[in-house]
């Protein structure tokens, strides 16, 4: 790259070997055969929250081959134009960043978004994420502050934006940000031709061959649509409406998995933090060694019966 002095220089230009593949070699079998799939099937999802030590809240989501990691930091004092001029009632700001790892797609993306395609597409998706997450977050509780959400797509196996949205809302919940509801994202795509059906949770191959695609974001408990991003050619409006309905149904089906994930993360956090301030909580959980001092102090302050209930742990660390 001519002007980029901050990175190690490579060749000026390079081509992926897939351009020169021998005829008849379909590059890499994608999950599942080309035809004959249930149009409303959702790939099994693995979600885990609270895995990064340096971020306030974090979440990792894996759906099929799509792998996305999201971290939340803040609230921080808002910087930029809004800082001084914002009125007291302006509420907080949500800053979203979406980036793809260079090795996430079939072609390597040059880091830095120097190429117009990579840079603008990522910015569009980041904006879509921000618009979808804003209705769920109680920004009014963070005046003059900003929350930073960064999503990193490690591997693109289809429905990247939907996965990023879901991961971002899990990360926000894990960070303890006040929210009205979790945001669940779901993507659909439709092949070319008048008889093509809308496919829920498309894989990368299906998205590449699609003539139209749409991503919906839903607040499941409130049953409100938080965001919608779609484009392409899919016939009349009724077809789009059917797609949105299918997408919302997909989101509802995904919600219990996310609930379980957040519960597990909360339990893990509780165990790691050691005993709570109340003596009942202190007796119920075994204090970790590092917190033995805190436990002793809390027990002594709370009263004699607390000391009686956990005598062995009261000894010095």
């Amino acid at each position, binding site marked *: 790259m001519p002007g980029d002095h901050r990175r*190690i220089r490579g060749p000026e230009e390079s081509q992926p070997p897939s351009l*020169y593949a*021998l005829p008849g070699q379909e590059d890499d079998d994608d999950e599942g055969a080309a035809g004959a799939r249930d149009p409303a099937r959702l790939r099994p999802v693995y979600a885990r929250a609270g895995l990064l030590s340096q971020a306030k809240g974090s979440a990792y989501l894996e759906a099929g081959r799509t792998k996305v990691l999201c971290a939340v930091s803040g609230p921080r004092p808002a910087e930029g134009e809004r800082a001084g001029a914002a009125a007291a009632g302006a509420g907080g700001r949500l800053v979203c960043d979406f980036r793809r790892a260079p*090795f996430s797609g079939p072609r*390597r993306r040059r880091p830095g978004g120097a190429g117009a395609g990579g840079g603008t597409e990522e910015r569009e998706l980041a904006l879509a994420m921000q618009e979808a997450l804003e209705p769920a977050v109680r920004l009014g509780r963070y005046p003059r502050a900003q929350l930073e959400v*960064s999503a990193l797509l490690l591997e693109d196996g289809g429905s990247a934006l939907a996965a990023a949205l879901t991961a971002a809302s899990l990360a926000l919940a894990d960070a303890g940000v006040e929210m009205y509801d979790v945001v669940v994202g779901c993507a659909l795509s439709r092949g070319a031709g008048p008889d093509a059906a809308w496919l829920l949770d498309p894989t990368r191959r299906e998205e590449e061959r699609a003539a139209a695609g749409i991503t919906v974001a839903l607040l499941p408990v409130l049953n409100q649509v938080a965001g919608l991003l779609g484009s392409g050619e899919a016939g009349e409006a009724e077809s789009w409406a059917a797609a949105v309905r299918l997408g919302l149904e997909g989101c509802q089906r995904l919600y219990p998995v996310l609930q379980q994930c957040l519960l597990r993360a909360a339990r893990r956090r509780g165990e790691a933090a050691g005993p709570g301030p109340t003596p009942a909580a202190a007796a119920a959980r075994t204090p970790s060694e590092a917190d033995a001092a805190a436990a002793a102090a809390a027990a002594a302050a709370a009263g004699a019966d607390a000391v009686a209930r956990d005598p062995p742990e009261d000894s010095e660390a």
Partner: protein
Amino acid sequence: MAAGFKTVEPLEYYRRFLKENCRPDGRELGEFRTTTINIGSITTADGSALVKLGNTTVICGVKAEFAAPPVDSLNKGYIVPNVDLPPLCSSRFRSGPPGEEAQVASQFIADVIENSQIIQKEDLCISHGKLAWVLYCDLICLDYDGNILDACTFALLAALKNVQLPAVTINEETGLAEVNFKKKSHLNIRTHPIATSFAIFDDTLLIVDPTGEEEHLATGTLTVVMDEEGKLCCLHKPGGSGLTGAKLQDCMSRAVTRHKEINKLMDEVIESVKPK
């Protein structure tokens, strides 16, 4: 109470532990954090590895592409490393072009590749003067808790061992390349450079594998890269307090021991991933 002291006087808090020859997280001065490695998880990359050193997490993805060989050495390919420290790994990094720390890490990895000759660049040449492989090694730090250089070198090595390149032939008549994706072969990895990092406290005390807080409080850092024959590939000491020759020797012997541990770990992992 301990937490309060730690916030107000972090250095004193650390010194109390160092006097007892241990560290706040319970480790000895010469002990490493738990190292875990996971290879081949990113299917879109030609080779990938995820390394966790305690909390520090680095993922490396290698993508191979075609390019014309460099004009000054027509029989060599390219290996292009790139270390990315995104805002999600730590709140001190901003989004945008690579900052100083990322550039230093990228240059360090490039030096390690060059000095250790981990891959002979001639092996990457397909057709003299016309076509060669470019290996783009992208390292992304997912969680920054100190000792990024060790994790990056290890991730790079593991990812390169995981890379499988398709067989390429040049068609005589058309002069174009023909790639056969069904026939894949591993790279020829000549050496295994493993890095060991140390932090220097108060100009005298050396601790191994510093966490983020320890790096912040240290007066200097040192990274030693060894290969399996006990040969030194690279020594990285960016300023900081001085070290005597004897201390440097100690560091190098510690690095040799570390090399054996990591080599064993990597062999186990690669063995377990092999298709039966």
